[in-house]
C-alpha cells in the first residue's frame, strides 16, 4: 500500500488554476453576441406600483429589450417552496415566495421591477434611468413586534398580522421543571441582521442554442441540479435540454443556495426569447438588497436551574424575521430552536417561534443558519446563571454536558431534516478541558488578569460551547471512472465555493483506487457531468458527497481487481494496487490502470452477459440523519474603556468533527468561520431605518473584518467518529462561526467588569458604539 491520503494535510489540486488567474468564474464567460442585463429595483420598501413606463428606455440606442412583469405572461409565477415545514404538530405556515419581477406591489427595497437587455452593461445601466416608475408608498413593516400588531400594514395583503409561520416544540413539561426550580433566569435576547458578503457577488449567464435545442446556464449557485430541474419545468423543457454549470464560485456561505432568485428566472427566459446569450452580474450595491440575508430574532427565554447549576428546563418564545418572502421554509428558526439545546442535558424544553413577514430582504440560511442565535441564548443564560449562583463559567457547563455514555442522545424534538434531533456521537468534557488548557483558563483568572488589571488594563476571558448539526440528507452521488490515460475522474452533483472538494474528494478516492491525489480529476457543479444531487449546504458536502465518492471508488477497486485477476490469471488476493498500477505481488508482473481501463472497453469480440464497460461506478449515499459535531471556543480580549475598541489577544478553537479528511483544509474552514463570527459579533450590522431603507449598503459602511481584526487562532481536534457513515466524518463548515457571539459578549463583560455595573450584553452584533451606549445608559 502507498501512504494513506485520507487524513493527510495535502495542498490543493485546484490552487494552481486559481492562483494564476486561469480558473473560470461566471463573469469570465464571454460569448459572441452576448447581451447584458440590468435590473431596475424598487427604491421603496413597501409600495403599490401605479405604473412603470419603459418607453424611453426601449428607445435608447444599444438597448435591445426592456421587460416588466406583464411581458413575462404565463411565465410569471411565484417561486417554489424549497423546504416544506417539518412534520411538527400544529405548525402554521403561510407560503409566500418571491416573484420574477414585481407586479402590483413591491415588498422590499431592491425588489426587481424591470429588466433591460442591452449591448453593454454600461448602456443597460444608463437605460435604467430612463424608466419612469410611479410608486404609491405604504407603511413599511420593519420592527418585529409592531409587525404582528393587529392594525399593522400587511406585507402580503392576505396574510393576517404578517405571520409567516408559527411552531411550538417541547420536550417534557417545562412548568413542572419551573415549579421545582431553585433559581430562574429570564432575559430578552436580540440577534440582528447580517449578511454573508462573498467577495464574488451573484451572476447568471444563459445561452440558448436553437440548433441543439439546448439551454446552458452558468450560475453562481450552490445547487446546480435543483436549478436545472426547476428551470426546465418553468421553461417547458425536459431536464436533458438544460445544462447548469456552477464553475468556480467565489464564496457562497448559504445565500447562493437560495433559488430561484428573480434574476435566475428572468435571464434564461430572456436568452431564449431573444435567442442571444445574456449575462447578468450583480453589483455590490445590488447584493446588499437582492441577495438573501440572515438573522433578526428576538428571544424571551427563561432557564430553570437547581441551586448547584443543573439545568432543569428552558422556555423560549421568539420572533423570527423572515423578510418579505419565505421560500426557504422554516430552516433558520428550526435550527435556532434545535441548536439552542447545545451539548447540554435539558430535560424540559418548551420553544415557540413566530416567523414574521417584514419589508426587508429575504432571510435564508447564512453559515450557521440560525444555529448561532440559539447558541447565543443558552450560552448567555448559562453565563448569567453562573454569576448569580456563584459558579465558575466553565464549571456550570461541565455540570450540564450530555455524558459520553449517553449517545446516541435523543432530544425528542424534530430537526430541520424532518428527523428526530438525535446526536449520533460526542464526547464533550475532553473538548472543554483541552480548551481550558490551551487558553490557560485558571492561570489567566488567578494570576494574569489580576496582574494586568493592576496595571489598569481591561482584559477578559470568554468561552462558549456548541454543537453543529451537519451532513444531513437526503443524498448525494458520485461517479468514479478510470480514464485511458491512467488518471481517475470523480464527478459529483454538488457545487464548490472554496471548500477544497477537488482535493478532499480526490483523497477519498485515492485510497481506494491506488492513484496519486494529483492524478484524480474532480468535477463538481456541472449537471452534464453528474445528473443527480441536492447541493452544498448544512455542512454536508464532505459528509454526504464524500461518502458517495468512497462507495463508488470501492466498487471501482473491485472491478480493477477482478479484471486484473482475469488478465494475470491469478487470485485477486495476490494483487496490489498502488501508484496507478496493479501488480502481482512477488512476480514483477504489472499492468497500468489506464491499460486495464482500455481492456474493460473492448472494440471487438464478445463479452459475457451482464458485462458493464469500463472501470467505473456510480454510487449514492444518504445518511439516516445528520451527524452532530461539537466544540468549544475560548478567547482572551483586551478592551479600551475609552473607545471600546478591542483586541483579541488569544483565540482557541477545540473542535470534534469526527475523522478528518484533510487537516489543512479543515483548519481553513475553522479560521474562515471564526472570522465571519467575529464580524457578526462586533463589526457587521445591517442597519435598517423605520422606512425599511438599509443605511449602510457599501463595504465602506458594512464592515467586513480585515487581517487586522481577525486574530491568529490556535486549533485542536478531538475525534469522535460518526457512526452514521462509513468514513466516520462530520461536517465542519459552520463550526467556526456559530459560538462567537456569546464568546464576545462574555469576554467583553469580563474585561470591563460589566457585572459590577449591572450591565449585560444580551444582543448581537455589538460594536464600540453600542458598548458606549449600553455602558453609559445605566450611569
Amino acid at each position, binding site marked *: 500500500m502507498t501512504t494513506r491520503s485520507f487524513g493527510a494535510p495535502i495542498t490543493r489540486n485546484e490552487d494552481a488554476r486559481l492562483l494564476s488567474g486561469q480558473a473560470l468564474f461566471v463573469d469570465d464567460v464571454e460569448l459572441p453576441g452576448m447581451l447584458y442585463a440590468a435590473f431596475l429595483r424598487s427604491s421603496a420598501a413597501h409600495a403599490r406600483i401605479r405604473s412603470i413606463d419603459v418607453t424611453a428606455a426601449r428607445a*435608447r440606442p444599444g438597448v435591445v429589450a426592456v421587460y416588466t412583469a406583464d411581458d413575462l405572461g404565463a411565465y410569471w409565477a411565484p417561486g417554489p417552496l424549497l423546504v416544506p415545514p417539518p412534520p411538527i404538530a400544529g405548525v402554521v405556515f403561510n407560503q409566500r415566495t418571491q416573484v420574477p419581477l414585481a407586479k402590483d406591489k413591491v415588498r422590499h427595497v431592491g425588489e426587481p421591477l424591470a429588466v433591460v437587455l442591452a449591448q453593454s452593461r454600461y448602456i443597460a445601466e444608463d437605460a435604467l434611468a430612463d424608466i419612469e416608475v410611479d410608486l404609491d408608498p405604504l407603511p413599511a413593516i420593519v420592527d418585529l413586534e409592531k409587525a404582528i400588531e393587529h392594525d399593522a400594514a400587511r406585507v402580503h395583503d392576505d396574510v393576517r398580522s404578517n405571520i409567516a409561520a408559527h411552531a411550538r416544540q417541547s420536550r417534557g413539561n417545562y412548568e413542572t421543571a419551573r415549579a421545582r426550580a431553585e433559581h430562574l433566569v429570564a432575559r430578552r435576547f436580540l440577534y440582528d441582521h447580517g449578511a454573508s458578503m462573498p*467577495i464574488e457577488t451573484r451572476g447568471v449567464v444563459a445561452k440558448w442554442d436553437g440548433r441543439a435545442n439546448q439551454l446552458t446556464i452558468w450560475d453562481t449557485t450552490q445547487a446546480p441540479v435543483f436549478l436545472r430541474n426547476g428551470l426546465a419545468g418553468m421553461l417547458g423543457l425536459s431536464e436533458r435540454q438544460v445544462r447548469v454549470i456552477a464553475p468556480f464560485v467565489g464564496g457562497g456561505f448559504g445565500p447562493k443556495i437560495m433559488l430561484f432568485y428573480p434574476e435566475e428566472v428572468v435571464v434564461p427566459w430572456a436568452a431564449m426569447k431573444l435567442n442571444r446569450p445574456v449575462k447578468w452580474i450583480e453589483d*455590490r450595491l445590488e447584493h446588499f438588497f437582492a441577495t438573501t440575508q440572515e438573522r433578526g430574532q428576538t428571544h424571551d427565554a427563561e432557564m430553570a436551574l437547581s441551586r448547584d447549576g443543573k439545568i432543569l428546563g428552558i422556555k423560549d418564545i421568539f420572533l423570527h424575521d423572515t423578510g418579505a418572502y419565505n421560500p426557504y421554509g422554516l430552516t433558520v428558526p428550526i435550527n435556532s430552536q434545535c441548536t439552542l439545546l447545545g451539548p447540554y442535558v435539558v430535560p424540559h424544553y418548551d420553544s415557540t417561534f413566530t416567523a414574521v413577514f417584514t419589508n426587508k430582504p429575504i432571510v435564508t440560511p447564512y453559515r450557521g443558519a440560525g444555529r448561532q442565535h440559539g447558541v447565543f441564548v443558552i450560552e448567555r443564560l448559562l453565563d448569567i446563571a453562573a454569576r448569580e449562583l456563584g459558579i465558575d463559567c466553565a464549571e456550570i457547563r461541565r455540570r450540564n454536558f450530555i455524558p459520553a455514555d449517553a449517545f446516541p442522545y435523543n432530544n425528542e424534538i424534530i430537526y430541520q431534516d424532518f428527523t428526530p434531533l438525535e446526536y449520533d456521537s460526542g464526547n464533550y468534557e475532553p473538548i472543554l478541558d483541552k480548551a481550558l488548557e490551551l487558553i490557560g483558563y485558571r492561570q489567566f483568572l488567578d494570576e494574569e488578569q489580576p496582574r494586568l488589571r493592576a496595571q489598569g488594563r481591561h482584559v477578559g476571558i470568554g468561552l462558549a460551547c456548541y454543537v453543529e448539526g451537519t451532513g444531513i440528507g437526503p443524498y448525494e452521488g458520485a461517479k468514479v471512472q478510470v480514464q485511458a490515460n491512467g488518471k481517475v475522474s470523480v464527478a459529483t452533483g454538488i457545487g464548490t465555493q472554496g471548500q477544497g472538494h477537488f482535493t478532499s474528494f480526490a483523497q477519498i478516492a485515492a485510497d481506494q483506487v491506488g492513484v496519486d491525489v494529483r492524478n484524480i480529476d474532480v468535477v463538481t457543479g456541472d449537471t452534464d457531468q453528474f445528473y443527480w444531487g441536492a447541493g452544498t449546504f448544512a455542512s454536508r458536502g464532505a459528509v454526504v458527497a464524500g461518502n458517495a465518492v468512497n462507495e463508488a471508488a470501492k466498487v471501482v477497486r473491485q472491478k480493477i481487481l477482478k479484471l486484473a485477476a482475469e488478465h494475470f490469471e491469478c487470485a485477486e488476493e495476490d494483487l496490489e494496487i498502488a501508484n496507478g498500477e496493479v501488480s502481482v505481488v512477488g512476480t514483477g508482473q504489472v499492468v497500468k490502470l489506464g491499460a486495464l481501463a482500455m481492456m474493460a472497453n473492448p472494440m471487438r469480440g464478445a463479452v459475457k452477459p451482464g458485462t458493464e464497460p469500463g472501470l467505473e461506478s456510480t454510487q449514492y449515499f444518504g445518511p439516516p440523519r445528520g451527524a452532530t459535531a461539537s466544540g468549544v471556543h475560548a478567547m482572551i480580549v483586551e478592551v479600551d474603556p475609552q473607545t471600546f475598541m478591542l483586541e483579541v489577544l488569544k483565540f482557541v478553537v477545540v473542535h470534534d468533527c469526527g475523522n478528518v479528511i484533510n487537516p489543512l483544509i479543515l*483548519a481553513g474552514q475553522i479560521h474562515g468561520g471564526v472570522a465571519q463570527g467575529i464580524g457578526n459579533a462586533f463589526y457587521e450590522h445591517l442597519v435598517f431605518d423605520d422606512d425599511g431603507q438599509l443605511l449602510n449598503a457599501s463595504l465602506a459602511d458594512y464592515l467586513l473584518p480585515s487581517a487586522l481584526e481577525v486574530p491568529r487562532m490556535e486549533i485542536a481536534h478531538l475525534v469522535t467518529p460518526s457512526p452514521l457513515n462509513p468514513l466516520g466524518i462530520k461536517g465542519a463548515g459552520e463550526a467556526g462561526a456559530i459560538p462567537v457571539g456569546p464568546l464576545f459578549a462574555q469576554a467583553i463583560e469580563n474585561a470591563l467588569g460589566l457585572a459590577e455595573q449591572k450591565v449585560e450584553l444580551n444582543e448581537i452584533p455589538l460594536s464600540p458604539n453600542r458598548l458606549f451606549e449600553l455602558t453609559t445608559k445605566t450611569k
Partner: protein
Amino acid sequence: MSTDSQSGSETDDHTVTVTVNGTAYRRTVESRLLLSDFLRHDLLLAGTHVGCEHGVCGACTVIFDGVAVRSCLMLAAQADGHAVMTVEGLAGDRNHLHPIQEAMRDCHGLQCGYCTPGILMTMKVFLDETPAPDEAQIREALSGNLCRCTGYQHIVDAMLLAAERLRG
C-alpha cells in the same frame, strides 16, 4: 447601478496604448470605461476580479507603474502610456508559479480564490519593498484586501514563507 444619462459610445472615445504584462495593446475605449472592465472584458485578462466596484475589497488590485492600485477606481483612459501587471503576468508563464503563489498554495492561503489575485498583486509590491516583514507588517499591508473565506491566518503564513524563500 449607474445613473449616467450619456448614451452614445460615439461621443467620447479615446485611443489608448497600454502595456499589460509586457505586451502593448492599442484599443479605442469610452472615457467612462473602468480599467477593471477594460482588462477583463476588452483584453480578456479575467484573472483580475471585481468584488465591490467602490474601492474597498481590493480584489481588482493590479500593479500600475510599480504601484498596487484598484483597477475599479481607475479609467482605462488613464492607463494610456502606462504599464500594468495583472495576475496573469506574475509568474512569467502559465506553467509556473511565482514564489508568492507557491507559498499561497503550500500554506492553503486561498479557498474560493476570488480575492486571491488582488492579494497576490498587493503582496508582490509589499514584499518587493519589505523583504523581511514581521506578522504585524504583513497584516497591515494585507488589511486593504478583504477575504471572506480564510480568516487571513494562512495568507499571513504564506507571506512569511514567501518572504523567506524570496530572500533565498
